[in-house]
């Protein structure tokens, strides 16, 4: 129904604003109806303002800014309807070191209630690990798995 959608939108928007602050350390962001007069059919738009920059078209964001904004959007819906598990496959690939750190702050917060499965090639992302698994193909075409002690995490080249 209409009012249910609006309440959901509002809650998700609140999550989005908060998560955006954590990930971008400033700026502002908002999820809102494109056409407030037509609640039943209106699309939803996302407006972001990066710290120190002007409000702009999402297309002009950089690769890393798009990735981080996408994460904020997904997590804002995730927190509205939390699942016990969250799976991220190399979401850190476009991010620089500083933004990986910001993402790790958020994941550290969320991991008390959510189990994460995270695939990465970036040593910086390993810092958030509680367990680490290595996957390898000793025999070509056949995957095998081995456990890595978390204390080794800074030695591991990925």
């Amino acid at each position, binding site marked *: 129904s209409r009012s*249910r*959608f609006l309440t*959901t939108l509002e809650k*998700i928007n609140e999550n989005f604003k908060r998560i955006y602050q954590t990930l971008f350390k400033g700026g502002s962001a908002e*999820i809102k109806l494109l056409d407030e007069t037509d609640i039943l059919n209106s*699309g*939803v*738009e*996302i407006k972001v303002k990066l710290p120190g920059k002007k409000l702009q078209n*999402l*297309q002009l*964001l950089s*690769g890393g800014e*798009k*990735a981080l*904004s*996408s*994460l904020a*959007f*997904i997590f804002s*819906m*995730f927190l509205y*309807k*939390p*699942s*016990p*598990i*969250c*799976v*991220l*496959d*190399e979401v850190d*690939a476009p991010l620089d070191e500083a933004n990986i750190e910001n993402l790790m702050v958020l994941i550290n917060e969320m*991991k008390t209630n959510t*189990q*994460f*499965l*995270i*695939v*990465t090639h970036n040593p910086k992302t*390993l810092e*958030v*690990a*509680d*367990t*680490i*698994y*290595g*996957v*390898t*193909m000793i*025999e070509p*075409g*056949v*995957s*095998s*798995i081995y456990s*890595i002690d978390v204390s080794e*995490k800074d030695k*591991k080249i990925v």
Partner: protein
Amino acid sequence: PYLKKIDIFGFKSFPSRIEIFFKKGANLIIGPNGSGKSNVLDALIWGIGETKISSLRGGKTEDIIFSGNRKKKPLAAAEVSLIFDNEGEEVRLFRKAYRDGESVFRVNSKRARLKDIVEELYKLGIGDRKYFFIEQGMIGNIITMGHLEKRILIEEAA
């Protein structure tokens, strides 16, 4: 609840049975390109009932069954078990598929249908994977999806 263990046998690059025990918190998976990291995540997604083969990066149903390498012949079937721990009580989901495409499901070792799997997942709080799973390479595209697509994402979360 959390995912305690995943058992993979005959699925993609896992010709022999492999068990992976996960912990609460952040489970990191690392390894070289092509070693099988995303295949582990595919096994999880397939195990919770994914029906679209393209979501598992396949073309035809049998693409998820081990297709052989220099030494090993293709296998006839793929199977995945997911063991969730729900406040101390174990929930076991099992899926097996043969080359002709039919899947066999089990919930706690009793024969079941896909609908029973979905119901168990619902009880665990696991819904549509678009809210908890970010596929490799997709992270930059989410924020720039269309206005109506964004609305549908929020509507379905409601």
